[in-house]
């Protein structure tokens, strides 16, 4: 008979393992990391011969890239030294006390921060409505300074998740945005302006500042301007001359012969017709690639871009709003494996 030692651990019998989710990094741990980071920053500054007091994050990055050069392609894989709050994601502290009783009254809903946020926002809504009724009862006018819709946007779902430290579903997010929208659309929402601003972000109004090229002059003194356009796989260059009769040549061939279809010719003339300059410009274009309609679209874009130099800033804005100056991003969708085409599936057979 052999005596076999059987080992059992108490770990298996440990209850309340819920804490293995949150608190992977305790507060003490993170504090220690921050101290170490600050010390390390000063040491690095000393090593590089710079002043430890004014050593910014950019200097740290440069120093690390110098001391530990790495040829790895993924920037996230290279050695980095950043503040611990950027490296260790923020985590929620344990939501219940020693007796096991949760602190928050909505803990058992599962999404306590989301529901408490919804409750708060609704409370603000009711507040605003009460204030409105108050004003109406006193026959005072309801003020409405229009919030600039154009300049701000609501937080995205990811940003909201970071703010609440909790996962949200798309449905939840859209409900929250609807509620916020409702709140901000009320006439007297100025009272809760601070609360709303927590959830809105400024959109940088500066769109791509496109530099409009000045006109060039050729030997005869005629002003002209060149530009390129593309659509699907077609690439086109257009040279638009001033003081012309409205003739258009593509790859040395007149447009009437190159584009027998009316729709393509309409597209070519679209920018000129929009600005009212049909008989005034001569155009010479070269185009390659793509199909019939793609080439027409590419030349249209090239002509519109070239016309920008001939025209005032306001008209350029009008052209942009008419959709003449945007590159069409639609391309052929790739075929997927397991399907016959991009969307079409194989015939479904029951057996």
């Amino acid at each position: 008979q052999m005596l076999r030692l059987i080992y059992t651990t108490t770990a298996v019998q440990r209850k309340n393992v819920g804490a293995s989710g949150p608190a992977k990094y305790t507060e003490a741990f993170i504090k220690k990391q921050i101290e170490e980071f600050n010390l390390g920053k000063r040491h690095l500054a000393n090593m590089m011969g710079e002043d430890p007091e004014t050593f910014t994050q950019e200097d740290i990055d440069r120093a690390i890239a110098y001391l530990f050069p790495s040829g790895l392609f993924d920037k996230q894989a290279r050695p980095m030294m950043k503040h611990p709050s950027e490296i260790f994601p923020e985590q929620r502290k344990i939501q219940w006390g020693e007796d096991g009783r949760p602190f928050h009254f909505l803990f058992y809903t599962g999404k306590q921060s989301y529901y408490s946020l919804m409750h708060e926002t609704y409370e603000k809504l009711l507040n605003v409505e009460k204030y409105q009724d108050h004003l109406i009862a006193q026959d005072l006018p309801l003020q409405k300074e229009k919030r600039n819709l154009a300049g701000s946007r609501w937080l995205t779902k990811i940003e909201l998740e970071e703010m609440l430290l909790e996962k949200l579903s798309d449905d939840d997010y859209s409900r929250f945005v609807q509620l916020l929208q409702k709140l901000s659309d009320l006439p007297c929402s100025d009272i809760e302006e601070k609360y709303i601003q927590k959830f809105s972000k400024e959109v940088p109004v500066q769109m791509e500042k496109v530099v409009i090229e000045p006109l060039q002059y050729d030997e005869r003194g005629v002003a002209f301007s060149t530009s390129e356009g593309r659509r699907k796989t077609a690439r086109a260059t257009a040279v638009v001359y001033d003081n012309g009769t409205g003739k258009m040549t593509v790859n040395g061939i007149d447009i009437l012969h190159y584009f027998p279809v009316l729709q393509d010719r309409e597209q070519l003339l679209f920018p000129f017709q929009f600005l009212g300059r049909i008989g005034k410009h001569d155009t010479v274009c070269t185009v390659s690639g793509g199909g019939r309609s793609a080439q027409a679209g590419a030349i249209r874009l090239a002509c519109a871009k070239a016309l920008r130099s001939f025209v005032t800033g306001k008209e350029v804005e009008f052209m942009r709003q008419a959709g003449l100056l945007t590159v069409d991003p639609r391309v052929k969708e790739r075929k997927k494996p397991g399907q016959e085409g991009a969307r079409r599936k194989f015939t479904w057979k029951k057996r």
Partner: protein
Amino acid sequence: RLMQVRWSRYNPSYLEPEVNKELYQKPLEELTEEEREQMELKAVRPIKAAPPSLSSSVFSDPMVSKFTNMMMKDGNKVLARSLMTQTLEAIKRKQLEKYHKAPENEKETIECNPYIIFHQALKNCQPIIGLSNITKGGKTYQVPVPLKDNRKRFLAMKWLITECRENKHRRTLMPEKLSQELLLAFKNEGPVIKKKHVLHKMAEANRAYAHFRWW
């Protein structure tokens, strides 16, 4: 989890382009509040590229291009467009014939512009109310339901096209048959108008179930 099936290459913040020249030449004072807001929004947001079927010329009409797209088969836009132009030409010829034969006092009542005839015919064919299948307690009922504008236009165009494709003699060509149907619809006669009236009668007959609708 919401999985996108219908997605587009454009970012959702892109707005639709506005091709109509006159809107841009209007001075600022004439715009209403909403239009001003729209303009401000357009000044900040990016705008999608204009599709090849859209143009600012006087000859392009959104209804006509929609109809041409619906008539198109296998992506043959060239053929569909030529059929459309032939239809409009046929309408013009027939109306001109009538115009020259008519006595003096009736000459003004005869409409010669094929675009006006097309628009009026489509308007006459649009049903006001439609039926939708609602299942309640195991049985499916046909419930009368108000239709949206888009749906009305779509149904009118669809009926016209199916009518022309099916109920014709083998030798007649599409433009001829279409022009016939459009002229009949313009006068509120013809099989498409009859279909519309049948639908209205069905809706009236099923009036009892109208309360099943919850939207």
